[in-house]
């Protein structure tokens, strides 16, 4: 998947969608411009492969009975509000990028998670039996 074999994929998960509350329209506009500049720069540098905000409407499915309830999974402050998919050299580099998030001072939290190279199923298949036998 990667041209540069020493690079890995990381996911930045943003939480805290209500960062704009309490800011003036000018401040929000300015912050949005900084956000776009940040995102565009990461894409141009080849370090960000994509990003998306998630809509607030959602459903959560759980249990044997496949119950469906209105989501999101966590309360607003802790719900995933969006993500960036990064391709960088290390967890440290991904974390440095997370530190550049323009709304950190307004309540946004950024979770940095490595993405496993293999698909979810094969990864789980490979790790589960070991877990069980341990």
């Amino acid at each position, binding site marked *: 998947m990667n041209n540069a074999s020493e690079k890995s994929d990381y996911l930045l998960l943003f939480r805290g969608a209500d960062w704009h509350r309490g800011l003036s*329209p000018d401040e929000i506009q300015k912050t949005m411009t900084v956000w776009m500049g940040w995102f565009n720069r990461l894409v141009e540098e080849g370090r960000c492969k994509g990003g998306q905000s998630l809509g607030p409407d959602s459903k959560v499915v759980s249990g044997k009975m496949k119950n469906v309830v209105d989501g999101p999974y966590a309360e607003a402050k802790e719900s995933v509000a969006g993500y960036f998919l990064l391709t960088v050299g290390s967890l440290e580099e991904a974390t440095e990028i997370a530190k550049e998030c323009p709304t950190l001072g307004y309540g946004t939290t950024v979770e940095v998670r490595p993405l496993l190279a293999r698909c979810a199923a094969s990864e*789980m298949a490979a790790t589960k039996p070991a877990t069980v036998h341990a």
Partner: protein
Amino acid sequence: MSSASTKSEYLLLFRNTDCLATLSAEEIKKVMVEWVAWSDRLIAEGRAKANRALGRTGKIVSGKDRNITDGPFAEAKEAVAGYFLVEVADLDEALAIARECPTLSCGATVEVRPMPKECPAHQLAAATLREIDGFFGRQSVPESSAVGAVSTI
């Protein structure tokens, strides 16, 4: 982003997939075979566009001081463990896929989230300004804006 304009993207976020560890080795194998078949079918049908698992570790960055702590964000059972990016007709179809998840029976949960078609910044800016309008009881559309989509509101 999407070639089929009538379709929408949804993100399925999986949690507590480690619940598999509570099953017997035989049951695990059965569920895994189901999972692979499920995933392969969705991809073959063109309904799943990406399918990734997240490593268990990570970092959390928060606050003005950009504090860094070890992640993930939530306790293991509630941490995001993986995701599917699906492209389907509507939320109901995404939900139907989520309900097929083979690890639901042992305790996994699947969160289904819509993905707005506009880029994140445009979407956020638009939502923000609409809320501001309501909050201040006026129209607040900046004349000169670097965020192009704002002018269309």
